[in-house]
């Protein structure tokens, strides 16, 4: 199948008083239309920066972003505006991403008017249609964000993101701020919309069970690098990178009769400022050896299963 999005050796560095922070450091992957890629990792691993760089909210420091077979890494002006309509993002906190002085109706209508595809009356009709699509009652059209609960607010954010007719949507922890019972409602909604509108998603989260449910492919990030990419059902069945294994074992299981012993990682994430060459996880890795100090590469260990670890074959034998 054709590729919708291809990321080649993408980098995003930030200058800090202490040195250069490698937030995203040489990430490559591609995504087919209608599919979902889940990106998991802990705070500070660069997953949000990756999402923002991919949709051109921030400029990259290196690498290429190919969208619909076109290099969009450096597009500007009118072209960038057109690109923004096709690439949208949903953030974690719906309250922070909605204008508190705009009603539901105005929030959605404003995004519609930006596309210049609708007359005013058409935009009114389209607003109504979008509200129905995401499951917001019409009687709430004149409500303000503070009058809505978290689940409804996130529905408004989703409706606004869809108003420009995107093909590709990044969800940056879109359900993390919601209660379990509401999370499931929003995840189902995102899946229904994907099917109905043939959307392609990048779903960024720290919640591994949610990401497995929604994704076709999962990428695990650690300190700016993608340490493992594989089909989503494989990640729980046969994780190959030592970090992925530790991450999975740390999730408290709800099965009280098979409480697995979690691999407790010593220490915390090291600083992404001026990182040394070699594996960035090696300081916390129980399989660490001298050769882990050399630069690693993403290797295909099994079909469609890529691992960024020079010892991956040995330790998984």
């Amino acid at each position, binding site marked *: 199948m054709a590729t919708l999005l291809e990321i080649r050796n993408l980098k995003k560095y930030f200058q800090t008083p202490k040195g250069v922070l490698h937030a995203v450091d040489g990430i490559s992957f591609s995504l087919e239309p209608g599919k979902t890629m889940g990106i998991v990792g802990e705070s500070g691993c660069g997953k949000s920066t990756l999402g923002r760089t991919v949709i051109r909210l921030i400029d990259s420091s290196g690498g290429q972003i190919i969208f619909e077979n076109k290099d969009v890494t450096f597009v500007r002006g009118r072209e960038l505006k057109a690109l923004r309509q096709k690439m949208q993002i949903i953030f974690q906190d719906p309250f922070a991403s909605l204008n508190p002085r705009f009603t539901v109706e105005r929030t959605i209508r404003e995004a519609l008017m930006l596309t210049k595809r609708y007359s005013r009356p058409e935009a009114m009709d389209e607003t109504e249609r979008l509200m129905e699509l995401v499951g917001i009652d019409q009687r709430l059209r004149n409500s303000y964000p503070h009058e809505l609960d978290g689940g409804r607010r996130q529905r408004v954010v989703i409706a606004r993101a869809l108003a420009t007719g995107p093909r590709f949507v990044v969800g940056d922890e879109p359900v993390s701020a919601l209660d*379990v019972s509401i999370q*499931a409602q929003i995840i189902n909604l995102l899946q229904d919309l994907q099917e109905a509108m043939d959307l392609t998603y990048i779903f960024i989260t720290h919640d591994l069970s949610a990401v497995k449910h929604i994704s076709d492919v999962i990428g695990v990030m650690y300190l700016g690098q993608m340490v493992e990419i594989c089909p989503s059902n494989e990640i729980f069945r046969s994780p190959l990178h030592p970090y992925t294994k530790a991450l999975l074992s740390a999730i408290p*299981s*709800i099965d009280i009769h098979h409480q697995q012993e979690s691999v407790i990682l010593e220490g*915390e994430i090291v600083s992404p400022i001026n990182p040394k060459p070699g594996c960035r996880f090696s300081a916390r890795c129980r399989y660490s050896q001298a050769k882990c100090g050399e630069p690693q590469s993403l290797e295909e260990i099994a079909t469609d299963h890529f691992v960024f670890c020079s010892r991956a074959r040995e330790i998984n034998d």
Partner: protein
Amino acid sequence: MQNGETQRGELLRIRDLVVEYTSEGETIHAVNGVSLELKKGKTLGLLGETGAGKTTIAKSVMRILPETTSKINSGEIYLNGKDVLLLSEKKMRAIRGKSASMIFQDPMTALDPVRRVGEQIEEVIRLHNNTGKNEAQQWAMEMLETVGIKADRAREYPHQFSGGMKQRVVIAIALACKPELLLADEPTTALDVTIQAQILRMIEKLKKELDMSMLLITHDLGVVASQCDDVAVIYAGEILESGSREDIYDHPTHPYTRGLFDALPDINKEVRRLTPITGRMIDPTDLPKGCYFQPRCAYAKKSCRHERREMAEISPGHHCRCTHFA
């Protein structure tokens, strides 16, 4: 049974607690007749979603509810047989941080940003013990080591620590005076899973060493499964189901408890669609007459709309407010 007082082997007993807040002239019914028992040396998980009243219960035990906007309408809270709701503020101050401590979700707001972490631990030590400055300093450094932080970091400020390390400092303060009761309010919710695993294991170890009892407040079914002996499920300020961990996880009986389990994506199963609990939490300023969960319940009968249900014992020690699945 002695009327209301703490039974043998029980550290904390809450009876019929009712707490309200007032906001803009409206009354918010946060806790609506909650009864709980925590046995000595055990961990009780208080499981519920946003707005269920979990934190209000813990703050009631510590008597740290906002004075002007909240009111404990009725109920008793026995800590070691004494009703803390009847104690003077002076007596209460001697309890906070000494026999009962509380840790909160966000470690940054729990620490004073302009004081060294060592001093913040010393403060609670000197408040409750007759120790000199040097002795308290030594004690504070030992506490840091206990929670896995090098003693020489006592001179650093909170912003120099990562989130997980800050939560360790908060735990060091909470446990410095070896409390009998730890109220842990979402202690790992703000942390990454690998750090959560470190902190939970540490709390478990210290709990054993200090022979402490814990009320663990969380919305995370996995955390409860790994930490708790007993579980109480709370919704709209009311306990809907309670029992041993096995009762709740092997035989979830209340439709809400079952709904929570069903709503979670199961990593071991391939399902296309999740099963959410439909609708949303009831308005706490306008409680319905009947069952509080009834508006969202797929099994609701006509009578559920009008009749209040009492807790019924469906098997020894396993109580539930709904008998549909009992």
